[in-house]
């Protein structure tokens, strides 16, 4: 029975509980090849020949519809086999955690640390493989967005063992689902409870850390109208919500919970035990400040560093009208003229840069080794799952376009470009400027031509 389940897992991994398509078809007026490439570069992790073939066959509107309501899909055989072979794919977290906990207590610290490291690297590799190869590109893209929004730091405590599960069960299934479900899944995941110290928050021994970041970073935003008092009250609500160390699973400890009445954002929360978490998350997920904060952040990610306020307003309305249906909010964004006008103008962060280069270079050919990719991301200042602070990586150009980072990018471009003996597909860029053409003409080899293409100003944008 377990074997059967295991075999079935990777196939459904792509869809989770994403609501089935009840969306109107996306209206998409123009559909030239250049626009399709630009659309791929913005909505997916980057255009390559195979994804272009797909969008050219479907048309942009249907392609977007499919991306918004993804059907189960597997990766190319080698990549899928690599994922299926991972411990984090084959064994449930409770089992992995139980074994690790035994190792830790039997004071085999070295084996414990090694295993943590191995599990963390598996999770990193799985994320990279999916970003590079998954047909459901938007879902992978949004999974990264939410992993960053609900950031946890893999090097805190045992988190390297949990981070794969956090992505797989808390984030990915809800990446295009309802914000309330997503928030709930993060609030009940041991990775978050450990990372922001709520596992230690108990009556009389208050720890404000999660309460503050839950409002400031996950829901309302720093200008969302809460006070220091609200932070303290929410911290009291959150007392007792912790982690059972044996199974590494969410556990409510009633005796650690503060039973007193709390006043949160003008609402009274009376002693409701485990139910208080639902009340608080309802309040936060449905607060108007949350809709605005989340929609603006999505628009920064998908449109511009300073997104047009009118677009954010329309998205906020959709968020309110659909009870935070993320796919519907994105649909409002994708059909907007502001979105279409912005294509090609967003600066890539290191993750976008690296994955888009690899998608172009590899297409459906296998990635020999994920480790150099992990190293390259770290060198450019965006190591995967390793942002120590809960704010996640910034999404705007100023944070990634510094002199030092660009120099590092060019050197990383060389490492990628020189692996390919033939010229890369130039069609991955909608257009090239005159200075870029001139430089490309001076390349002395296809490898150098590839270096220049991947170093060009055009390739830095999406």
């Amino acid at each position, binding site marked *: 029975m377990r074997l059967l389940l295991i075999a079935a897992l990777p196939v459904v991994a792509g869809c989770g509980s994403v609501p089935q398509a009840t969306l109107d078809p996306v209206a998409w007026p123009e559909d030239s090849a250049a626009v399709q490439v630009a659309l791929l570069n913005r909505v997916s992790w980057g255009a390559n020949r195979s994804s272009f073939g797909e969008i050219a066959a479907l048309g942009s509107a249907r392609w977007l519809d499919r991306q918004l309501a993804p059907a189960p899909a597997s990766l190319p055989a080698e990549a899928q086999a690599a994922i299926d072979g991972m411990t984090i794919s084959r064994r449930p977290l409770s089992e992995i955690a139980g074994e690790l906990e035994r190792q830790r207590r039997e004071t085999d610290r070295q084996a414990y640390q090694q295993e943590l490291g191995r599990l963390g690297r598996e999770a990193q590799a799985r994320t990279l493989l999916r970003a590079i190869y998954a047909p459901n590109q938007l879902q992978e893209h949004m999974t990264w967005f939410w992993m960053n929004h609900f950031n946890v730091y893999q090097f805190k405590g045992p988190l390297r063992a949990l981070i794969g599960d956090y992505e797989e069960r808390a984030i990915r299934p809800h990446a295009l689902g309802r914000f309330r479900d997503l928030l709930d899944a993060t609030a009940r995941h041991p990775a978050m409870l450990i990372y922001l110290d709520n596992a230690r928050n108990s009556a009389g021994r208050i720890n404000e*850390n999660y309460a*503050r970041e839950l409002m400031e970073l996950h829901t309302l935003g720093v200008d969302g109208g809460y006070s220091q008092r609200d932070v303290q009250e929410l911290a009291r609500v959150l007392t007792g919500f912790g982690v059972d160390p044996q199974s590494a699973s969410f556990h409510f400890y009633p005796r650690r919970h503060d039973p007193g009445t709390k006043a949160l954002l003008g609402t009274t929360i009376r002693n409701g035990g485990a139910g208080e978490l639902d009340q608080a998350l309802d309040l936060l997920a449905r607060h108007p400040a949350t809709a605005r904060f989340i929609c603006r952040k999505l628009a920064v990610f998908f449109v511009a560093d300073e997104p047009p306020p009118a677009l954010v307003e329309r998205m906020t309305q959709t968020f309110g009208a659909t009870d935070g249906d993320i796919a519907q909010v994105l649909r409002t964004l994708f059909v907007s003229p502001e979105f279409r006008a912005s294509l090609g103008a967003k600066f890539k962060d290191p993750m976008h840069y690296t994955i888009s280069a690899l998608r172009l270079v590899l297409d459906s050919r296998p990635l020999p080794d994920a480790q150099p990719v992990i190293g390259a991301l770290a060198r450019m200042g965006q190591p995967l799952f390793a942002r*120590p*602070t809960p704010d996640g990586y910034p999404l705007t150009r*100023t944070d990634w376009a*510094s*002199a030092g980072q660009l120099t590092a990018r060019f050197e990383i471009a060389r490492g990628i470009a020189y692996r390919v003996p033939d010229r890369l597909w130039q069609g991955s860029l909608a257009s090239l400027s005159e200075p870029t053409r001139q430089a490309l003409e001076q390349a002395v080899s296809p490898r150098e031509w590839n270096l220049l293409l991947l170093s060009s*100003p055009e390739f830095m944008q999406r």
Partner: protein
Amino acid sequence: MNRRRFLAAWPALYSAQLLSAPAAPGRLLVVFLRGGYDAANVLVPIGSRDYYELRPNIAIGRDAVLAVDSDWGLHPALRGSLYPLYVKGEAAFVPFAGTYNLSRSHFETQDSIELGQPAGVRTYASGFMNRLAAELGAQRAVSFTNQVPVAFRGEASVTNVSLNAAGRAALDARQSALIAGMYRDTPLAETVKDGFASRESVMRELGEEMAAASRNAVNARGFVEQAPRMARLMRADYRLGFVDVGGWDTHVGEGGADGYLAQRLAELGRGLAAFAAAMEGAWRDTVVVVVSEFGRTFRENGNRGTDHGHGTVYWVLGGSVRGARVAGEQVRVARATLFEDRDYPALNDYRAVLGGLFGRLYGLGAPALAKVFPAAAPRDFALL
């Protein structure tokens, strides 16, 4: 002092100042401790009974601290590093320092400090270090970080180099020129050129060390190893520098005289001492300011840690710093004087403190300082 030695020393000092005045008015390194370090366990208020009462598990005992004065003592982890500088008179502390910002948010308060704007103003056009670079004219500025920090954003050209893992350059001069050419009509043209230039500078100053290191790569473990590299680059090429040191957000198990915070402090102290030593003669013209976004709660929390607070302690180090003292406005440390009954108050506005310091360091007058810190009132605590 021996009169002869005094006379012999005087002209040398005078001429050095004369020579350096126009071109080299001083070097500044800002060290930002990200995460809000627990200032009350670093400059320890040993004269406060409440400190010991409210921190039953993490307070540092009166007999464990390094002697400062009857009110304050220094964390013992700084014994062999920062404390000797302090005793020599090359380090001072400014307690009750901080911002008007009461969000107690790391990110909001860090941005506040780096932008350096008056309360109620928030534009991201420029940070105070960039405006300082602009006031100083053609002074070269560098950030030893992966990203250019908010403090350095703005009009003046600022480069960044990460000294964590700088290997030998992978591109030759021709390829670099071809790449720079592609950017000539873009807003990134200068940035790309600066990047290649600072790459060259790193190779020139640290090339030998890199060649000696395995696989031509420097593998710095933390601040201790980076700091002397920073000093060599600043000595050679840069007047303004910035670096981040993280890991100060001690909500859980921060420890006291030993433990987590003690280890972080020991590393920081060793790095700063190594920086001072590696600056060699230039240390005399150099000032290092150590800041953090806020202090932490005066009471320990339920997890033998501390939560986000308000006022903090800034450190000012340098060869010409008038140190061995605790400077600025002060108040008796007690429960009754806490801000909102939980934190140190911020009596020394960071813009006033830094403004006053920059005034001394660079001879900047009120109009110039007003550009660096608009609508601030610089306070001169005669730190130089």
